[in-house]
């Protein structure tokens, strides 16, 4: 359920929505963090639901001591009105038995808010790629039929690769089994995509094959790729890194080292 942060309901009509899928290496969530922090987006509301594990912390995008003390929750919506851009950041895992309910909730909220298009940032297990997927770069996209009409050609021009349907039984030449969409480790990505196809939502999935570890470089790769399409930043991304790393990314590998060690 969407709850506005202030008394007035924000208007999302015609906005582009970017949201992460909680997936391998949290690449989508890291990329969304970079977008919010770089564009200094404003929090306009929360997704308050029983489908996510609760968590709370102080401002993850704090730039000074003054704005550090501000409570943030598991799922929040940010906007940048001039760019007509909205972002949903999800900071907690989805409760396993409630993933279907969560997808339904997202789809109905997206529909009711009138977003012009939705982009899901996701990732998938690199080790589960098949032979053809192994031979090319690790970025893929998926478009629902409703969005295919609008920007299918634009993505083809950019030279993006569509996510391949893989054989249901690799190695067997059984023509009766249709190739299927397979996104291992992608969380709700596949479900959200198929739901959106059924609901005729204009939705795109942009995903990256990766392995768990330090996934910060992966998030930059995914975001630079996305930037080629959406132009979140005017400057070409190949130049010096223009994305702003939020303060909450500190200490990713734990606390300081005890001085007594040396």
């Amino acid at each position, binding site marked *: 359920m969407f709850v506005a942060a202030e008394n007035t309901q924000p208007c999302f009509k015609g906005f582009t929505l970017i949201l992460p899928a909680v997936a391998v290496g949290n690449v989508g969530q890291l990329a969304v963090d970079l977008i919010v922090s770089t564009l200094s987006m404003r929090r306009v509301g929360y997704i308050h639901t029983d489908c996510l594990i609760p*968590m709370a*912390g102080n401002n993850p995008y704090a730039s000074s001591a003054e704005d550090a003390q501000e409570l943030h929750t598991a799922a929040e919506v940010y906007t940048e009105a001039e760019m007509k851009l909205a972002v949903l950041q999800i900071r907690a895992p989805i409760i396993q038995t409630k993933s279907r309910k969560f997808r339904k909730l997202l789809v109905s909220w997206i529909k009711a808010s009138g977003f012009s298009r939705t982009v899901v940032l996701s990732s998938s297990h690199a080790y589960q790629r098949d032979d053809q997927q192994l031979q090319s770069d690790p970025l893929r996209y998926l478009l629902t039929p409703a969005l295919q009409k609008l920007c299918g050609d634009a993505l083809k021009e950019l030279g993006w690769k569509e996510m391949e349907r893989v054989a249901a039984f690799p190695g067997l030449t059984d023509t009766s089994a249709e190739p299927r969409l397979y996104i291992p*480790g992608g969380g709700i990505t596949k479900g959200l995509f198929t739901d959106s196809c059924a609901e005729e939502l204009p939705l795109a999935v942009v995903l990256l094959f990766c392995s768990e570890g330090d996934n910060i470089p992966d998030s930059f790769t995914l975001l630079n790729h996305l930037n080629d399409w959406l132009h979140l930043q005017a400057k070409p991304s190949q130049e010096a890194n223009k994305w702003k790393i939020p303060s909450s990314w500190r200490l990713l590998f734990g606390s300081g080292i005890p001085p007594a060690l040396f």
Partner: protein
Amino acid sequence: MATFFGEVVSVYSRAVEEDDEEELEEPEEDEEIRRELEERREVRLQWSADVGEMLSSGAARLPCSHLILAVGSNAARFLSVFVLHSANWDSVGHAAFWNEMTQTASGQAGPEAGCVFYRNKDSPSVLICQMTSYIAEDQLFQWTEKVFGCLQQRALNVTVLCDSPVAEYKSPDYVSSSSVPFLRSLQTSACSGTGPRSGTAPCPPLEQPNIVTGLPAAVLSYCQVHHIPAIAYQCYSDVISPDSITMETYKPVLTRLGKVIQLEPLPNADVLRKFVTAADCRSNLYI
């Protein structure tokens, strides 16, 4: 994963499994079992006769100006030792819930339950809730919805005391053992305004990237979304069982709530002994 000694430990992974089975139509029988399991995990609030009567009469809610919630053994026992033993408190209800960590199917009832509510005899709008048992992740949201659904929220102030192991605290400097236990606070936006509470926090705010999880996080999220002033005080300690030094850390928090809650200057030794010895590790190595 199996370790050197052969025991199987679960490994935390950020990978998310795609559950293909879920997409399939499930037989009716499975759905029934699933529904029964869900029903079993429901959180049920049981109030004492007079409170129950008040709540059931129309849409009335329990008047409440202060809710003090203690989560974890040290926080809960701190209230037992310094506040609740003064005989000025009535037990007015408890929350019963079942999950894989609770021992009996029905959940313990009465004062021994894992989650008990107390009301002050002199100022009945002050409530204390002690939570000592494990509440599962899928029950947290339900708990907050049900408990706050029973309370009047107009003038409500929430204080949460909670425990956390110091191993989970992240800091660029090494945390030496002489500095634990220590407190960190986290407050909702409704708090940080120009209320009487702002500016005089007894401890520093919780630094990023540290977060609060579990029931305190569920309560803070609820209060943030519903514009209720709430502060959580997280105590980082290196002792997991109830321990008097860790309990002392919470004292400055309650001295600030002085008008609301009478804090005994000294801990009640009998109550303290009861909790501390119960948690004593009984080893037969040096009999």
